[in-house]
């Protein structure tokens, strides 16, 4: 399936969502509540077979956070990026780790550095920083007057 065809078939699966070609991958923007059903359909649809989550990350835009999921199909070798916006004050989203086991560690890292709360994650706790760390360092409003020298 070519990229154009892929975009069309995903658009027809999710008529409410917007899909456009990004720099490298097609980008599908969805509502955060529909995340699990979208992932589930993309994974189980035999012509798409997105069976591999090769990256999961988060972006802080100050006004809101954006979760970014990079999917890959090991059968067809096509990719897709899924983006969904979260509230900056109390970011919460369903965990993807019951569909993609690799999300478990990614989500712990995102929780650690961005403070996104993943619902139904088996053991959501800090992974890189110490357990008693205050705050989430990759947030734009993070401040550490002792260790940080501001430019």
């Amino acid at each position, binding site marked *: 399936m070519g990229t154009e065809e892929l975009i069309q078939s995903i658009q027809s699966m999710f008529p409410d969502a917007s899909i456009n070609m990004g720099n490298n991958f097609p980008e599908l923007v969805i509502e955060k509540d529909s995340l699990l059903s979208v992932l589930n359909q993309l994974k189980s649809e035999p012509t798409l077979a997105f069976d591999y989550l090769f990256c999961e990350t988060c972006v802080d835009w100050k006004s809101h956070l954006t979760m970014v999921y990079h999917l890959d199909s090991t059968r067809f070798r096509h990719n897709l990026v899924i983006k969904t916006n979260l509230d900056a004050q109390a970011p919460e989203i369903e965990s993807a780790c019951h569909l993609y086991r690799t999300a478990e560690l990614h989500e712990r890292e995102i929780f650690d550095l961005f403070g996104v709360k993943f619902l139904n994650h088996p053991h959501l706790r800090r992974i890189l920083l*110490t357990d008693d760390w205050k705050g989430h*360092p990759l947030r734009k409003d*993070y401040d*550490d007057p002792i*260790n*940080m*020298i*501001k*430019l």
Partner: protein
Amino acid sequence: MDVKITPPSEPFPGTVHPTDGGGVLVSSLDEVINWARSNSLWPLVFGTSCCAIEMMSTAAAKYDFSRFGFEVARATPRQADVIIIAGTIVNKMAPVLKRLFDQMPDPKYVIAMGACATSGGPFFYNTYSVVKGADHIIPVDVYVAGCPPRPEALLHALITLQEKIKSGLTRDQIRGEMKAHGN
């Protein structure tokens, strides 16, 4: 302070007085000890980022720091003489570095390799995790500039360390001399 750069051809410290059937060598014990020490410095296997790749290159066949007596890298601090801080030191790594340094037997030497180990380098500003220079944790003998330094630069630092040892001063004595010269 003047670190005298001696040509590598300079032999054993001391003078030989020729006599029948051989010769008599006159030297001072301190000089002999420093000469021996400077020519057998075993580095610790310690690399925290990209500088470590350059350090491995310096150790490998093309540059080969064994030629200057940096023979074998030891995996335990108890057998190492010099620690080459090759890479960024983060706050979480700092106590590990301190412990490794404490476990090394005296005399021990430290080379800060590259911008990160010298000052935090590219991570100096707006970073919550990086130590702004490894000398906040352990005393450093020789600093190398570069990001990362080329193997030649590391070799130069290693030879400078040898000259420093051969000059026979302790770290405190050197610091005192530098203060006396207004540096």
